């Protein structure tokens, strides 16, 4: 009899785990309270930025994930709008230059050959960038993909491999027996399994709490503006250095200086729309858009690309990114309890890390040695 696994959560992470599990022969049931990509994975941007990752375990994972993305379209037989577009982190001030210089040095040490380029070279690579731009980074291996297509393609591929997908089925409870999770209770039925993987992003803590397991994931709201369809304009993925400094930001003083955590993250979709982000705010599970944030994001966008002042905005939306205090996801078993695994907390790295997360979680859940030492991502790292 084959190994039965339930994956709770149909976002990028859950669908990827379901796919890799089904591929390795497990009997998979993927359940979601609403639909595939109905939460965070359906309200994010499309960047597979490697150079923005913190050097260390996350960057190592991102590099492995990027390698998987290269063959994924062929493997899943779907156009994922994957494109190796290259990426830039644009630098506007001397202070930012200093921070980014240090980061680039660390990345070069980790084997990512990001380069610092002049403002002129940046404008040559990406016409339309502001004359005021001081410098930029450039890395040709950054890429982009359509996260909706990835989620749906992973789910379909899992289904072709025998996985059962149950949508509109909220998990009410994780069922336990002694120190073991034996299945889930949904609004309609009780499902039993040898293992349960919770890949419910910002909604993960609520599922684990009744077991007395504290999962320190906090929703962090990010807002994005959508433009009308435009002719091809952006050749590469672009972040502003302030996006990085906001990501790494901790102190309360900076929070006071910019409560919205605005930094530019811009890309162009296959259809021609620009996705212009973003912000980082702790506002609980609130997903209301904020006109003031729209304005601030608009300001940084127009400052970087003056011609964007003439572009029409057709929509704004927000997504809840699953934040953890050390900017690393939680991936692996739960100490002291059997049959339960967590894969959540990727914040803004979910698109980049989805394939490798699925592959490694499948290895862990099937009892194989994961291809990378995963101790840095264990839930128990927070127990101090």
């Amino acid at each position, binding site marked *: 009899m084959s190994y039965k696994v339930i994956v709770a959560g149909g976002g990028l992470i859950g669908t990827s785990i379901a796919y890799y599990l089904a591929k390795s022969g497990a009997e998979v049931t993927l359940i979601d309270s609403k*639909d595939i990509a109905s939460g965070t994975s359906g309200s994010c941007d499309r960047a597979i930025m490697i150079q923005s990752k913190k050097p260390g375990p996350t960057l190592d994972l991102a590099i492995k994930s990027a390698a998987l993305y290269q063959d994924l379209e062929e493997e899943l037989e779907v156009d994922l709008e994957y494109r190796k577009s290259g990426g830039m982190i644009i630098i506007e001030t001397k202070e930012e230059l200093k921070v980014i210089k240090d980061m680039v040095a660390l990345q070069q040490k980790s084997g990512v050959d990001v380069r610092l380029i002049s403002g002129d070279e940046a404008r040559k690579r990406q016409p339309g960038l502001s004359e005021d731009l001081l410098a930029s980074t450039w890395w040709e291996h950054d890429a982009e993909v359509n996260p909706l297509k990835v989620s749906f393609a992973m789910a*379909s591929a899992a289904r072709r491999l025998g996985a059962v997908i149950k949508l509109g089925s909220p998990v009410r409870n994780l069922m336990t027996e002694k120190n073991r999770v034996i299945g889930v209770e949904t609004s309609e039925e009780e499902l039993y399994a040898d293992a349960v993987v919770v890949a419910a992003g910002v909604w993960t803590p609520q599922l684990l709490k009744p077991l007395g397991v504290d999962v320190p994931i906090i929703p962090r709201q990010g807002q994005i503006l959508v*433009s009308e369809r435009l002719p091809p304009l952006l050749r590469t993925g672009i972040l502003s250095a302030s996006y990085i400094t906001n990501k790494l930001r901790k102190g309360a003083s900076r929070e006071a200086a910019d409560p919205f955590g605005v930094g530019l993250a811009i890309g162009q979709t296959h259809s021609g729309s620009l996705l212009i982000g973003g912000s980082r705010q702790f506002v609980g599970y609130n997903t209301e858009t904020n006109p003031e944030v729209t304005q601030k994001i608009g300001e940084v966008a127009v400052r970087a690309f003056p011609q964007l002042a003439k572009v029409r*905005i057709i929509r704004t939306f927000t997504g809840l990114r699953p934040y953890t205090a050390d900017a690393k996801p939680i991936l692996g078993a739960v100490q002291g309890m059997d049959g339960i695994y967590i894969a959540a907390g990727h914040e803004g790295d979910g698109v980049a890390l989805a394939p490798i997360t699925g592959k490694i979680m499948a290895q862990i859940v099937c009892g194989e040695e994961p291809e990378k030492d995963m101790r840095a991502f264990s839930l128990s790292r927070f127990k101090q």
Partner: protein
Amino acid sequence: MNDMIICRCEGVCLSEVLDAVEDGANSVPGIKKRVRVGMGYCQGRVCQPIVRDILESKLGNGTKPHLQRAQNPVRPVILGDIVR
């Protein structure tokens, strides 16, 4: 008849909407995320009621499907006017 256009902004046909429902979409945003219906210039102002009716008839059981959330701006606005 299946190739009747439902969403003119994104050029989405009835057959694609039906395929999305077949794939498991149980809400208007679910169809949108699969086939881009209502994702374009008018933001579903024209096609959403039609998509809702199609979904309602397919789901049966009298449930009212979840609609796309109305978001700012209420109509396309030039970014230069937003930041001014």
